[in-house]
């Protein structure tokens, strides 16, 4: 019965806010009144009769309930405030006040003229109604503060208020709300007739809703045992909680059908082939097609669609674009000619080279406007293929992926915040393994080319999702498992071939460069920054303007992060009196900025993906027509627009990244600074807050569109 009641309450809410009732609320006062009655008199008691707190708490993730909500729910102050709000002497007057205030013409007109105020009005009605009905229904864990019979006068007082208000609507001879006077007259009802009807609806059904429970309570009070409260919910709660404990970790490879496909070797080859063919198409069009970005595959597919899809997949799954990498496909083909016998020089076995290439790539992107020059885009892809074949043709393993590829580094760092990870399913199985096939390979399958030993691996750093280890493991003990995003960032210990984050300045700088570049790259596309950069060229001439632009870029992507993190590290060390050297403090905390940087990349690239998604069709059409595979002229006027929800989604992404980074920084400070946690956290938290503020400012500016003819 409780479930039915709760579902009916939800259905009532849906009818109130997402049905024609709402659509006609600004045309007919009577419709609007029905909507308000459902929000205040129907939905709240039904929801409360379903004892909602118990199933909601049981259904939420256990860690969220115990570590997130638990401390609040059991805090005496929160309990006291909650108890006060549902006390009949507070809840009743609040409900009546809300009813009366929102029906004052000024407030009512305000809600009719603004969607925001309209929502606030509904929230007020629903919120105060839940408080009002709470002492009447007394859902778990409510405790009666008044005797049961006292609910009868409580309901009657509110009914008197309802009667006075509805009587006013019914008998007043002028239209109270001018909006309804101007609205179309449906069903031939005049505005005054509509107002009287609204009053009657409020009066009759409204009074029934108050009087019916009053009557039920009275009858129960007059019969013996009618006031007993149910006590069964504690047992139910235990049962539900124990059920939620049973849940096991999600494994993508165990999903029927999909898991089999993903782990098959041909699946990766197929993905790589598709990406390789697309890359060839982009290169061909970039060199020989029209040199207008929005009309060329090289101006659209890599910069709008590939980048956008990559970050979305990284956010919701993991590093699947490294899995589909066309460069490693070409490299594997190249290895049939080049034997790859040498080992990568020891001095170069770090990320510094890749960091340098990454900075160069970002600079070239800004300086030469790669996205706007199809020829340069095509040349970059050709260069990339040549580098992959050459490096991996000479050196063993996946040297190119690990030490050279800037795109790979972007994926590695971003996938630190991904929800999926290639990981050992059952560690005890690996403890008995002597062959280490996941690392060394066997006759059938090759092992990890990046030398990641699964039992000692943690997180997604350096993992290309090639799944060689999955296929090589004879015990089938490696899967793609769900993991709390960012878990690896808090792990303090050695990881296979990655080591300890606090001892990897190259990794720390990689994360910092990517984080600051995320903001610099997005800022380079908003109107005020574009004007400022244009101003530099105008003021200093083309040559010196370009030099100052380069210096500006290097300042933001290289110097600013260094100054910021060493400054924060030094301040944190000084204020907390910490004895640890600066290097591990900086390295450890710099890694925690990966989520906020990634969130800015996602916010930025999804903007281009969403606003320019349709831009691929006319370009593909044109490309096909060039090869005689399509006849008609492409529709270059295809609609490209910014959906209303996009800015909100971008801000939410940035919020998530910032809060996540702050949480990681706090945890790191808690582990390493002891009683000086707050002071140790403060400068780092300030830096994350400053980046967030810059990010919000960027998102609020008009941004250029990519890959479209409307720029």
């Amino acid at each position: 019965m409780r479930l039915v009641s709760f579902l009916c309450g939800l259905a009532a809410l849906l009818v109130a806010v997402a049905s024609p009732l709402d659509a006609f609320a600004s045309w007919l006062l009577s419709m609007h009144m029905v909507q308000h009655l459902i929000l205040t008199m129907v939905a709240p008691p039904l929801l409360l009769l379903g004892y909602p707190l118990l199933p909601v708490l049981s259904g939420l993730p256990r860690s969220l309930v115990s570590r997130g909500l638990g401390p609040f729910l059991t805090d005496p102050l929160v309990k006291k405030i909650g108890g006060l709000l549902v006390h009949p002497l507070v809840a009743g007057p609040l409900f009546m006040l809300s009813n009366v205030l929102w029906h004052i013409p000024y407030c009512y007109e305000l809600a009719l003229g603004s969607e925001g105020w309209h929502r606030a009005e509904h929230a007020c009605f629903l919120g105060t109604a839940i408080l009002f009905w709470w002492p009447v229904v007394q859902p778990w864990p409510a405790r009666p503060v008044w005797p049961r019979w006292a609910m009868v006068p409580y309901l009657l007082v509110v009914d008197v208020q309802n009667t006075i208000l509805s009587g006013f609507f019914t008998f007043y001879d002028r239209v109270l709300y001018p909006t309804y006077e101007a609205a179309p007259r449906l069903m031939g009802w005049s505005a005054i007739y509509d107002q009287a009807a609204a009053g009657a609806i409020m009066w009759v059904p409204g009074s029934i809703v108050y009087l019916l429970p009053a009557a039920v309570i009275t009858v129960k009070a007059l019969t013996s045992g009618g006031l007993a409260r149910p006590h069964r919910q504690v047992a139910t709660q235990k049962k539900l909680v124990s059920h939620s404990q049973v849940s096991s970790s999600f494994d993508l490879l165990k999903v029927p059908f999909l898991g089999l496909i993903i782990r098959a070797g041909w699946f990766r080859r197929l993905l790589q082939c598709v990406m390789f063919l697309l890359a060839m198409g982009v290169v061909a069009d970039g060199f020989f097609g029209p040199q207008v970005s929005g009309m060329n595959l090289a101006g659209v597919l890599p910069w709008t669609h590939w980048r956008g899809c990559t970050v979305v997949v990284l956010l919701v799954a993991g590093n699947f674009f490294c899995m589909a990498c066309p460069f490693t496909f070409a490299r594997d083909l190249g290895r049939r000619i080049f034997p790859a016998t040498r080992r990568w020089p020891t001095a170069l076995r770090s990320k510094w080279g890749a960091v340098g290439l990454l900075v160069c790539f970002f600079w070239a992107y800004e300086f030469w406007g790669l996205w706007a020059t199809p020829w340069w885009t095509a040349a970059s892809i050709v260069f990339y293929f040549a580098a992959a074949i050459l490096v991996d043709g000479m050196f063993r393993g996946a040297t190119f992926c690990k030490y050279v590829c800037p795109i790979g580094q972007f994926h590695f760092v971003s996938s630190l915040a991904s929800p999926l990870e290639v990981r050992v399913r059952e560690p005890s199985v690996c403890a008995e393994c002597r062959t280490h096939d996941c690392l060394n390979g066997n006759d059938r399958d090759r092992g990890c080319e990046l030398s990641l030993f699964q039992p000692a691996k943690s997180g997604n750093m350096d993992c290309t999702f090639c799944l060689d280890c999955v296929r090589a493991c004879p015990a089938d003990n490696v899967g793609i498992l769900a993991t709390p995003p960012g878990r690896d960032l808090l792990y303090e210990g050695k990881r296979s071939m990655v080591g300890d984050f606090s001892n990897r300045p190259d990794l720390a700088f990689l994360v910092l460069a990517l984080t600051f570049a995320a903001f610099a790259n997005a800022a380079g596309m908003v109107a005020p920054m574009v004007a400022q950069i244009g101003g530099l060229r105008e003021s200093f001439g083309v040559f010196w303007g370009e030099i100052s632009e380069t210096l500006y870029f290097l300042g933001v992507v290289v110097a600013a992060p260094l100054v910021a993190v060493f400054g924060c590290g030094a301040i944190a060390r000084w204020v907390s009196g910490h004895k640890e050297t600066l290097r591990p403090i900086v390295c450890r905390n710099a890694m925690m900025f990966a989520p906020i940087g990634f969130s800015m990349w996602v916010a930025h690239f999804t903007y281009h993906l969403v606003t320019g998604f349709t831009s691929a069709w006319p370009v593909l059409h044109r490309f096909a027509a060039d090869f005689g595979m399509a006849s008609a002229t492409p529709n270059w006027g295809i609609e490209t627009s910014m959906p209303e929800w996009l800015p909100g989604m971008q801000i939410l992404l940035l919020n998530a990244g910032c809060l996540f980074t702050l949480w990681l920084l706090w945890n790191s400070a808690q582990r390493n600074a002891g009683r000086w946690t707050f002071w140790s956290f403060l400068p780092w938290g300030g830096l994350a807050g400053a980046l967030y503020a810059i990010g919000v400012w960027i998102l609020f500016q008009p941004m250029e569109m990519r890959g479209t003819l409307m720029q």
Partner: protein
Amino acid sequence: MMARLFMLVWIAGVCVAGADGGRVIGVSEIDGIRVLLFGQPDPLRAGLADLGVYLEKNGTSCLDASVGFRLIKLSAPSPDPSWAGPGCLAPGVSVPAILGHAGNKLVYSAVLGIPESGIWELAVDINRDRFSTALFELKATAPAHPLATWWPLVLMVPAGVTLFAWRSRILSRRQRQ
């Protein structure tokens, strides 16, 4: 995993189940058709605006017309461009207004981007038995700062930090006890 997915869908669902608003901001009569123009926000500002028209002939709704909106600038160009950029219309471009767009299916509506503040003329092109145009003069005020629209989302970060600090305080107090 499924529970979390369900939670996400639920939260997204809550976000879209919003309230409809908008009220009549202009009335005109052309070829026997009464045209009522609804607009939001009220008063109109530069940036995105939700406009709709209700067509009525002899007391009955006209649902078989094809309707389009055009914006024509009447006042001098304004120095303050709208932040909404890409969504804004180039003056004179016609945008179809359709019945399915609004929650109220009796209204032909579309979201228009008003490029800048000033006096605009909205031409409502109605094609029913014959083509006719109703004209409405609109005054668009300066664009609202985006923070005025998105402040609830921006507040989430300080709110999150405050709740976390509060939680830490509760836990540390409990530990001391």
